[in-house]
């Protein structure tokens, strides 16, 4: 069995997974997620790697390929690095084989990635530099409202008369929210309004990658926000998209999963060329 690791260094979290591949079958052997919280992400990545090895009871030398993604390019013990679009597409296919569009909404940006059944990226659209379509913006607003991250989704779904916020600029959107608070708009309606505003942007991105059928799978941190997933489903229905918006309980690991699986694929390719082990194992 070929054992490979995927390490996704995101803006908010570090995710690590361990996979075994044999005869076309894959086994998920370990997973670890750590919020960064102003700590050294590379130190956390090393600890996360050790944690998944401990779960599988394997030493480092048994890992044939350590693949990084996200901001993990400079991890010294990695074998190779894959760009996050590449890994989220593959991770999306692993989590739901009907996936044809992956919506990776992380702390700082959002992307719609169109993929084929192999996980090959066909095209993509990405949010611009403004953070108003990102998880970080949502976290900030929740903090101002005194709401914990875990509560955002449930509270948002209680909002019946949402107030829309600026979908262009995070600064203007924050001003909108301050005005709403002063007008006694409920937290539920504020959060629902933000979710709808963000979902509208993401729906535009999805539309931009082409009208396809199948699943639009949410990955990244916001995949776990039920309020946002519901808002995106509503926005997609509004634009009459044939795609079905879904999330997955393990969606936050999509990048790390994709990295580990591409690592196994790449390891096999190098081995076929007689270069197995040429690009070093985990030191």
């Amino acid at each position, binding site marked *: 069995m070929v054992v490979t690791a995927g390490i996704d260094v995101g803006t908010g979290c570090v995710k690590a997974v361990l996979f075994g591949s044999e005869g076309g079958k894959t086994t998920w052997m370990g997973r670890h997620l750590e919020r960064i919280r102003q700590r050294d992400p590379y130190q956390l990545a090393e600890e996360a790697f050790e944690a998944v090895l401990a779960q599988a009871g394997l030493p480092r030398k048994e890992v044939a390929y350590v693949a990084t993604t996200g901001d993990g390019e400079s991890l010294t013990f990695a074998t*190779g690095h894959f760009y996050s679009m590449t890994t989220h597409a593959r991770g999306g296919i692993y989590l739901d084989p009907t996936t044809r569009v992956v919506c990776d909404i992380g702390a700082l940006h959002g992307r719609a990635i169109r993929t084929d059944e192999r996980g090959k990226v066909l095209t993509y659209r990405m949010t611009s530099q403004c953070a108003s379509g990102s998880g970080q913006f949502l976290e900030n607003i929740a903090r101002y409202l005194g709401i914990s991250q875990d509560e955002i989704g449930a509270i948002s779904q209680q909002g019946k008369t949402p107030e829309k916020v600026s979908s262009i600029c995070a600064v203007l959107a924050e001003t909108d929210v301050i005005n709403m608070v002063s007008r006694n708009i409920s937290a539920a309606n504020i959060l629902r309004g933000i979710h709808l505003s963000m979902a509208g942007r993401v729906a535009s991105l999805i539309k931009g990658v082409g009208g396809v059928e199948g699943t639009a799978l949410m990955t990244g941190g916001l995949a776990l926000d039920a309020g946002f997933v519901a808002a995106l489903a509503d926005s997609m229905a509004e634009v009459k998209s044939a795609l079905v918006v879904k999330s997955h309980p393990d969606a936050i690991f999509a990048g790390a999963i994709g990295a580990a699986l591409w690592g196994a694929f790449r390891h096999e390719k190098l081995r076929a060329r007689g270069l197995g082990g*040429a690009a070093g194992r985990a*030191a």
Partner: protein
Amino acid sequence: MAETRTTAEIVAQCQALFDDLEFTHSRRWKEAAPGRKVVGYLPVYVPAEIIHAAGMLPLGILGGGENLEVIHGDAYYQSYICRIPRSTLELGITGKFDFVDGFLFPSICDVIRNLSGIWKLLFPKVYVRYFDVPQEFTDDVGGVYYEKELQELREGLAHLGGRPITDEALRTSIALFNENRKLVREVYDLRARTPWLTPTSEVYLVMRAGMVVPVEEHSALLREYLAAVQAEPRPMRDNCRVILNGVFCEQPPLNLVKAIEMSGCYVVDDDFMLVNRWLLDDVPTSGDPIQALARAFLHRSAETAAKYQPDLAKKGQYLLDAVRDRAAEGVIFAAPSFCDPALLERPMLESRLEKVDVPHIGFKYAENSGQMQPVREQAGTFADSIKLWSSP
């Protein structure tokens, strides 16, 4: 016995030289002995041997880089011109070249040619020469012209230095530059064989040092770097092998090179600063040295966008040869915005690559480009596509 330096220490010295827009090292060289003179030159090629034989320091001028704010320079060029002439003017107007006694402006493009005229007007007391090279490569036509051009340069520098430049001095300088070119080739060959030992962001700085220090000192630095990197193990990554093309004049910010490498690419060949790689092998140190330099230029010089290729069938062949010889898996075209030579060459090179299924991408930059995310995105997805979807 001299203390052995680590790669990090050598690169730190080169980084300091790279960052120093006061050209302190070159100034100190000049101040170390009375009567010393410094002659600056712009990309892409000048026969630095002649400057050296005159007892002067050839100073490579490659613009102001990413940290220089251009204020005065913008007044001399319209907005659709590249940045290197503006930042070079900025350096000149703000006194950064007040120790430089002469300037050579090679015939890389109209912009640099016109810069030679502006320089003459702005700095009338400085020796300024537009150094024209032939675009015809037979001994009887281009050769005769180029020998006269070299001879004029020799006489001009002799006048500037107040003493003749002898054939013997020229031969000695040619030998020193032969040695330097040999070491440069060794570094490039080593990088192509083991790119994980010699990141291009380091190699670039080591080569860049050769623009501001005497050739003897640079050769020693290259020897030291070669020994240091081979003595220090570094992990090999599963990166794809690419050639960087189009970066021969205005230089990209160092962060752009780093972004390409961090995205999963090993740069196994490039066309940075061709002045030290322009002549492909040793120039003879016997016979007429001017003729030897001319013949080397005509028959044994690098083919680039800056050089006319009269045979269309051979256009871009050098790049295909480099792809084969360096075992490259793809080509990244990076050119300065508004760079006529690089950007006009690119479609011809792309069509040659496409005929033999060599993948490529392209983007533009300026020496002060700050936003590297698009580069990371392009280079990263390019590397992934090669690693995952190339055959077999």
